[in-house]
């Protein structure tokens, strides 16, 4: 026992890589494990690059939102309205182009729609302090309803001749690499810098950890939360466009089925539901795990009914493991070892 105590002191003296990046390493481990399991189950499929090309095209459609949602979850809030914002922003884009607005201008208005949606969510949650689950269930119907009314429930074809630039930006592979994943990597780098290397990012952690302390130290809690919701709004519109151009068609139901995948990615990535901790890297890796389970089960020749079962197991086991590791780390006091 005495020996153990000795090593503990050493560890405390300089927090080990494991202590600092434990949950990120955990999620990467889970990802590798699932990958090897799939290779083992269906070696033919999972040694073929095409299966990876398929993940790489579809995962970012919700993964990019998971990256932005990480900010909101770290502040201790939740946004359930992003699937509706995906559809509403894309609808605005389609309608404006149909009304002969130059496409880049339409794009700006589409993103602006995302800003307004996020602003409404953030204002109601942060300024009026209504629980975010309640607010965003409400705005989810509001934005979806508005979109359905605007589109009268009809879809819009998004062919390559009509939108050559948009297809080049959002769908066509770049140097034979799926451009969707390039976007996801770009967003991940930008968001990691935003979260870890800016004042705003620092305040996101502090606000989620203890909003009263943050206010006492002069941090504008309302502003930080509103900005986080706006980030999700804008990124949702981008993801809506990405999804629609991938399918060459805008469906008024765009975003349906994205909700649970996206939220699962954030939690699987180690971001705490209580706020205050989380990482972009975690959400990034977790998104691909979620994407891989969805596509991988079927590709591996396992009955598709197993998808959800497997999905549920991975999420529950990962979250339980993270919680246990977390408790272990926090229980250690510097002096009382």
């Amino acid at each position, binding site marked *: 026992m005495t020996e153990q105590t000795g090593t503990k002191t050493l560890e405390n003296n300089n927090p080990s890589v494991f202590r600092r990046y434990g949950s990120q390493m955990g999620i990467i481990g889970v990802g590798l494990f699932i990958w090897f399991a799939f290779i083992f189950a269906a070696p033919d499929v999972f040694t073929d690059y095409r299966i990876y090309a398929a993940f790489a095209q579809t995962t970012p459609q919700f993964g990019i939102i998971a990256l932005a949602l990480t900010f909101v979850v770290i502040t201790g809030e939740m946004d359930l309205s992003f699937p509706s914002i995906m559809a509403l922003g894309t609808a605005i884009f389609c309608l404006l182009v149909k009304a002969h607005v130059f496409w880049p201008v339409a794009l700006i208005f589409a993103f602006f729609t995302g800003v307004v949606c996020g602003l409404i969510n953030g204002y109601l949650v942060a300024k009026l302090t209504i629980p975010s689950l309640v607010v965003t269930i409400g705005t989810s119907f509001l934005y979806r309803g508005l979109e359905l009314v605007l589109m009268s429930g009809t879809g819009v074809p998004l062919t390559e001749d009509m939108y050559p630039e948009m297809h080049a930006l959002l769908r066509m592979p770049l140097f034979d690499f799926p451009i969707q994943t390039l976007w996801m990597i770009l967003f991940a780098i930008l968001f990691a810098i935003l979260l870890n*290397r800016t004042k705003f990012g*620092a305040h996101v952690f502090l606000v989620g950890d*203890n909003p009263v*302390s943050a206010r006492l130290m002069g941090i504008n809690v309302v502003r930080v939360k509103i900005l986080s919701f706006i980030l999700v709004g804008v990124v949702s519109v981008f993801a809506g466009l990405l999804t629609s151009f991938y399918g060459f068609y805008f469906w008024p139901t765009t975003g349906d089925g994205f909700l649970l995948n996206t939220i699962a990615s954030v939690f699987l990535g180690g971001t705490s539901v209580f706020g205050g901790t989380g990482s972009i890297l975690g959400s990034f890796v977790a998104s691909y795990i979620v994407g891989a389970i969805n596509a991988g089960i079927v590709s591996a020749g396992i009955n598709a009914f197993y998808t959800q079962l497997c999905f549920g197991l991975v999420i529950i086991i990962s979250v339980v493991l993270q919680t246990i590791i977390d408790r272990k780390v926090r229980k250690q006091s*510097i002096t009382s070892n």
Partner: protein
Amino acid sequence: MNTTISKDTRDKPVIELINVSKTFGEVKSLSQVDFKVYPSEIVGLLGDNGAGKSTLVKTVMGFHVPDKGGEIYFKGNEINDWSVSRARSLGIETVYQERALCEKQSIWRNMFMGRELRNSLGLLDVKKMRSESEKLMKEHMRFTSTAVHPDNTVATMSGGEKQGVAITRALYFEAELVILDEPTMGLSLTETKKTLEFVKNIKKAGKSAIFIDHNIFHVYPIVDRLYVLDRGKIAGVYNKQDISMEELIESLYEVARTGKI
């Protein structure tokens, strides 16, 4: 009411509150309070639980906005858009009773909360904040245990160490005025002694402090002037040389019984 004003000849007060009231719904937590702190002066704030000490401190700090009609002056200039970030940028720092720490975050994030250091690109200078935190913990707080590492989360620290972070944070930024709201609460004897030593050093450095503590034996020896607060009102102001500790204790009992001195 004892209103000794013998400081007229001195500089302008660092902070001055005139006729400040603060109402929460139906409750009047502060009622027409006049309060000031001069440069290199330590002011003690005494009063029972619920007397309004914390409310007064949070009003000075810009956390609470006073009711209409109250005036706040910083070094003689009236300030209308008082806020925590404004107060901190002018050099007022507080060690709160509740410590105001974010426990899941690292020491360096807590140390620089709301005042993060940035490099020329506008990005956080994490390296500098880490090394500064380490230096401060060792030199300033004299943490003898080498276990203190800037990347450790505050949740892993003892009560005294947490208080150390809160105090160091307030002193690091070379504040003009440091407010300490019951800083010795929950501390061990040695930690208390160390904290009181800090308060004395503030005065030596030519800065001011507001010192709030339940324990009159802590407050009396180090302050220059004393305010006694009762049910949101200033019940008395004393220069220390005009009142002995025994008289002070006597009048505190009197206030508690009657609300008057």
